[in-house]
Each structure stands twice: as C-alpha cells, then as structure tokens.
C-alpha cells in the first residue's frame, strides 16, 4: 500500500519553530468559503420560510419575495461550489480500516484522548462522515429543491410530487444544518484547526496530534 496516498497536491512541511504544514491551497480555501457562505445564507433564508417564528429572517434578504426568489439561486451556487470541493477532496475521504477503529473509540475522541486513537491520514473518520453526508444531502437538496422551484420548474411535476419534495427538502435541510453544526463545532473545539481554512497552514504539533500519518507521509516524501 502506497504511504503517500494520504497527501494532497499542495501539502508541504516547513521545518522551523514551530513546524508549519501547508494544508489547503488558496484555491481550496476560496472554494471552501464560497460554499460556507452559501450554506449559511441558505440556512438563514430556508429557515425563514420553514418556521413562522423565523420569518423575520427574510428581512436580511430584502423581504419575503426576494428571499423566495434568491434562495434557490444560492442553492445553485452551493451545488457547483461544493462540486469543486468534492472533486478536490473525495479521494482522501475514502473510508479506510482505521476509520472504523476511530469511530468505535468515539468516547476517546470526545474526551480528547487523541493518544488512544489510531494514527489517521489527512482526514479522520468524523471529517469523512461530514464530507459524505454533505455530499449526499446536497444532492438530495438540489434535486428536491428543483422540484419545488416554483418560478421555473412548477410545470414539470405533479402536486403530489411537490409535496414529497418539500418534505424531503425540509428534512434534508435540518440534517445538513446539524451536520454543519458538528463541522463548525469540531473546528472550534480542536484548537489550531481554523487556521487551516483561513491561512491554509497548521502547526506541526497540530498535525502530529490529529493527523499523524498525514504528517509522517509528508515528511518521508512523495512517490
């Protein structure tokens, strides 16, 4: 098995004090933040139309009608933006044997006993789960979203199909918001993570602690 499998183009180690590791390229970060902004705007505008108590959120978008108009377009942006992330990251998110072990020791994960966890590559099982859930949910959301996009697609489906789509869309949206909360919380809780997406860099210590195999493969070189 090739050890360099865990390394993505652009990843690099810079010895020093502390050691600095390049984790995300500028392109990947821009791609991520477009996706992130779209997802947040979609959640806000979607929740506004989901629960009457949250209808006030429509004022962020210029009123109810513009919210209704703009939400699906942001969805289109998200879909294509995430597609970019998908093609960047899918390979390193393939499920590996150690991911099962990692998941089984979720208690150690949550109690920060990282020393008891298997050495993982660029992504741990939790990150992979977030990645695949996001991928599947975004497909479900864009598909069901097109069915209920009144302005352009109303004539292509029956009312019953629209009813199913609107329910599926709501449930998928709730799940993706929960996944998003896990994603954001993990980035905040595990200190030193956010710089990976803001500056593109993490410290060597962070890589050693959380993604040791990735770090080792980076150090031992490429094929």
């Amino acid at each position, binding site marked *: 098995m090739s050890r360099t499998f865990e390394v993505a183009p652009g990843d*690099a*180690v*810079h*010895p020093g*004090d*502390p*050691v600095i590791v390049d984790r995300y390229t500028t392109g990947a970060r821009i791609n991520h933040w477009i996706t992130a902004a779209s997802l947040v705007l979609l959640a806000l505008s979607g929740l*506004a*139309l*989901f*629960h*009457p108590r949250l*209808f006030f959120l*429509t004022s962020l978008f210029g*009123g*109810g*009608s513009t*919210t*209704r*108009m703009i939400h699906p377009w942001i969805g289109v942006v998200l879909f294509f933006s995430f597609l970019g992330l998908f093609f960047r990251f899918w390979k390193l998110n393939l499920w590996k044997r150690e991911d099962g072990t990692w998941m089984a020791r979720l208690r150690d994960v*949550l*109690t*920060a006993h*990282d020393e008891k966890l298997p050495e993982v590559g660029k992504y741990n099982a939790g990150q992979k789960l977030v990645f695949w859930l996001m991928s599947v949910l975004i497909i479900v959301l864009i598909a069901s979203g097109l069915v*209920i996009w*009144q*302005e352009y697609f*109303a004539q292509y489906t029956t*009312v*019953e199909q*629209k*009813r*199913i789509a*609107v*329910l599926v869309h*709501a*449930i998928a949206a*709730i799940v993706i*918001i*929960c996944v998003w*909360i*896990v994603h954001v*919380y993990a980035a*905040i*809780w*595990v*200190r*030193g993570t956010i710089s990976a997406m803001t500056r593109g860099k993490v*410290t*060597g*210590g*962070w*890589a*050693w*602690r959380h993604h040791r195999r990735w*770090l*080792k493969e980076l*150090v*031992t*070189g490429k094929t």
Partner: protein
Amino acid sequence: MFPPIANPKAEAITPKFGEQDLIRRSASSITPAAKRQTEVAKLIDVSKCIGCKACQVACLEWNNLIEEVGINVGVYENPHDLTPNTWTLMRYTEWENPESGNLEWLIRKDGCMHCEDPGCLKACPAPGAIVQYSNGIVDFVKDNCIGCGYCVKGCPFNIPRISKVDHKAYKCTLCSDRVAVGQGPACQKACPTQAIVFGTKDEMKQWADKRIKDLKSRGYQNAGLYDPPGVGGTHVMYVLQHADKPQLYAGLPDNPAISPIVELWKGLTKYAGLTAIGAFAAIGFLHHIVSGANRVSDEDERNAKRLAGGSTK
C-alpha cells in the same frame, strides 16, 4: 326559486367583516374573533347548470381579470385549466350512465371550496398572506404573498395558481368584497338558472335538501350534497346527481383532506427539526464547557519538530 339577493343601495356601506373577524391567519398566532359571524356558503347545483359560462365571465369582469386568448383543442373547457386569471372554470364531463344507458353531461364549476380547515393556509409560510374570516371565507392577501407556491401543495383541490407576472398566488375570493357589503358573489349573480345560489351555510344546506329530494323523485337515487368532512366542510358546496361518485365530476376528490405529507411537513418536521438543531448546538456548547478545548501541547510541537527535522525539506 331561491329568493334573489336585492341590489345594493346607492350610498356607501361599511363592510360587514374585516381584519377583526379573522379566525385563522397564515404563519401567525392570532386570537380568533370571539364571536363567529354567521357562516356563509355558495351552493352549486350541478344538476341545474347549463354550462353557459356566465359565471366565468362575471368572475373575470368583477375581479377585473383578463384571460389570454387560448387555443381550441376540441374541448369545452376554456381556458384548459384554472389560471392566475381564471379563478373559476366550468369542467365538462360526458358520462354514459351504465344503469340508464343515458349520456349525461356533468358540468362542474371548479374553483376554491373555501374549506373550513384550509390546507393552503396551513402550508403558507408568509404571515397574513392567507386569512380565514369567521364567516368561512378563505382569502389571499396579495401584499403579504411571497409567491413560494406552498399553498399549491397544501390545497387538496389543486386550486391556487401562481402568476408568472407578479409571482403572487391567486384563487376565488368568494367575492369577499361583495359579500362584505351584503351582496352575493358575482358568479351567483350572473347565473341564469340559479344553479349557483348564495346565503348562510344553513340556508344553503336546507335549499340543497329540497333539491336533493327533487332529484331523487326524478330517479337520481344517489343525489346528495358535497360538503366534505375531511376538510371540516366547505363554504362552497355542490349538489351532485351522483354524490356517491364525486370522481365522475372531472376528478372531484371523493374524500378530500389535507395531505398527510403536508401535515407531517408542517407538524412534526417543523417542531422536531428545530428541536434537533437546537439540541446539536446545545450539546456542542455543553461539551465545550465540560471537556474544554482540545489543545495542541508543547510535546506535540516538539514531536513534530523531531520528525520534520529529519526531513530534507
């Protein structure tokens, strides 16, 4: 003959119902009007309808609507379906009665049924875009409508239509503006055979009873009133010659009710969904309080340095 409603007087009349008489308002919690006004209803006697479409014309005229010139595809319906401008539509069904061998021409005036439990209102996300008055009229308030099309999904009768021009939902208002000043709906006024009559719901039920008796005496054993209980009854009712088979009348639902999918979407999903989101956020917050941040130690950094130091990079 049902006593006709007198013409209005020339002087201005204060509307008999308004904002203060709401019993339901979409996406809002309101205190329903303490005293309900007498429930009104429109009764459409299919057996008396001659299919002249005067009601359709009267509707366009009173509501200042203009329908596009369509294409004749060899059917009587004109236009082919309800549209944002056509709030009522005559639907024609030719049916060969297997018992009598007669060809029966069943003509149903389609349009909003003004349900007692309106699915459109339940589905609507925009506060005040759909309201129900205590007399039973369900009305769309254009200024509050955002054009999302949720009412279309909520309606068990497939009535609301969204305009491609202003992206607002439209349907029959039961001429709430006319009813407010003591008049009947425009379609009722125009009907030359009194196939459409208007009054209180009780009056209409009594009138329907007479009509049903008459129809039964003429051999329509299954004549009856269509006031479907699945939506709590409606404020537009039909007298049908074959009330046991509403489907015959251009697909009038046998037992309409708000779709269970819509109930699930607007019920459990709404509450469970927000609870789940809240729970995830709360668990995150609590976890952070209990376990603190997961920090990189100096030892981790030293280990990384030792490892990277061996590198040639």
